């Protein structure tokens, strides 16, 4: 299939540029291609994607926190003891070793395909910046910084994108609770206030189907 050869060639070009910094790849024929590179080769990988593979269009850059959420899906009844949750960290396509992974995507406007590139983020939570590769990464890295707490070495202006400047915590991390679900877990409890003068009705604890 033509899509296959295109993506396989991209992987080969990348391997030729990066050597063993390219840890793992996954090609879904006709669909998409994922690669994972070593953290210290993140910058070189960006340059290689832009120049060697020819991906001129910068799509996005963000991060994934692979730890399952300790709060579940916010559906627990706060009056019951919390059930045991499986907290093993399992990464997705092309594997990984750390809890946080940085991932980005670039596309080619001429060859009409794109590459999703991932990298593990070490415990120091610092990664090189992608601004020399794609100028548009500026705002994306600011957002990843405030949402996940990742530092980008070499970023000229790493301040908060969406959140106010004194904000504490990193919201997209799984251990940062979603306050709306802390206050009122899904499907919620219906509080029924009795009419004045009437005896109190028993509160309805089931809000309905989800």
């Amino acid at each position, binding site marked *: 299939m033509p*899509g296959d050869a295109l993506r396989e060639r991209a992987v080969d070009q990348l391997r030729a540029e990066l050597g063993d910094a390219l840890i793992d790849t996954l090609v879904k024929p*006709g*669909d*998409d291609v*994922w690669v994972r590179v070593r953290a210290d080769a993140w910058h070189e990988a960006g340059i290689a994607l832009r120049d060697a593979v020819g991906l*001129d*269009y*910068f*799509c*996005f850059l*963000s991060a*994934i*926190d692979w730890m*399952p*959420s300790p709060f579940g*899906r*916010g*559906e627990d009844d706060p009056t019951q003891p919390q059930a045991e949750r499986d907290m093993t960290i*399992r990464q*997705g*396509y092309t594997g990984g070793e750390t809890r946080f992974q940085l*991932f980005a*995507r670039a596309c080619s*406007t001429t060859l*009409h395909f*794109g590459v*999703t590139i991932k990298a593990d983020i070490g415990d120091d939570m610092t990664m090189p910046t992608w601004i020399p590769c*794609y*100028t*548009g990464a*500026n*705002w*994306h890295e600011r957002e990843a910084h405030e*949402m996940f707490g990742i530092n980008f070495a070499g970023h000229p202006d790493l301040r*908060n*994108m*969406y*959140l106010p400047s004194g904000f504490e915590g990193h*919201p*997209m991390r*799984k251990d940062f609770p*979603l306050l709306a*679900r802390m206050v009122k877990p*899904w499907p919620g409890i219906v509080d029924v206030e009795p009419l004045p003068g009437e005896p109190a009705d028993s509160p309805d604890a089931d809000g309905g189907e*989800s």
Partner: protein
Amino acid sequence: MTMLGDRQRLAYIASQAADARLNVELETEGMTLNIGPQHPATHGTLRIICRLDGEQVVWAEPSAGYMHRGYEKLTEVRTFPQVTSLVNRIDWLGSFANEVPFILAAEKLMDIEAPPRAQHIRTILFELSRIANVSLFLGDLGVQLGAITPVFMAFRDREYVLNLIESATGGRFHPNFDRIGGLKDDLPKGWIEETRSVMRKLRTFCDEIDDLLFGNEIFQSRTRGIGVIPKDVALQYGLSGPNLRASGVDYDLRRDQKIAMAWDKVDFKVWTHPDGDSFARCWVRLQETREATLIVEKLLDTLPAGPVMAKVPRIIKVPEGEAWVSTENPLGEMGYYVVSKGDMGPFRVKIRSASFNNISIVPWLLRGVYVPDVITILASLYFILGDIDR
């Protein structure tokens, strides 16, 4: 300069030096102007901090986040159908178009394809939301520049499209109509003829706007040559949609990728413009609106019969995996990177919205332009706050 003699050259240098001395003596402090967050010009609560020197912008920085709702965090506690209704509200003017890439990503993970009729109707509704979105842009363009009349025509003709969307889906602004595996419902009776007549009306509207606004000399002088974005800069920043095509890049996701929608069943023209200035961006959007009406008509002609929903289990659990789907939304390229762990809801959804990248170019673009041109450039880049801030 080359024809001047020595004495004249010396006199010129002396006058330049005198000017420079005067400029230093008269050095006035630049003024910092906040455009927004409450402002008639910005489409929502965007704040642009400009440092001015007289009427020229020396430095500009957009400050987004006044409307940040934390979508990516919210998707982690919802099931897939709930995320669909959440995601409607990112680009609220063309809201059906927001649901589609997410549903397609989920279908990709489940390895389901919607039946052909559903794909067709999805594409028709997608193009209708594009028309609804961009016709408002065309009207609003006039208001930003001072022509207060086209916006009323835009709202009047947009009502027809919104009525169509409402009669098919039940919601004017937030249809919430897409489901994993197809659509919620089939089209109502008489919808196809109504749509054909509305498309004709929309083409008349496009011609009116072309005449009234684009043909106006003042409009041309306000937008030509303003805010030029070269091709390579546009690609580096990830500009998409009409902004990218107005800089001369022939890239349209409807034509250039294989996706489970019906665009490959129709022939349509992808409009580009070599200039990359504000006029080019506005012009490309006008042509695309017209083209969208033609696409809708062609799709109506070839609408296949059949079911609108594939066989999906009642409780939807999407198998483990990762998928990326992006489509050519009215504002640009919108995509969802869905990570699923086999649950009823996603594990992580990265929402790639078009306006985020489109506005990230503003600091680079606004250096050295006049204050009225700031408004023109923002109007031509066309963003929706919900799309920037998610």
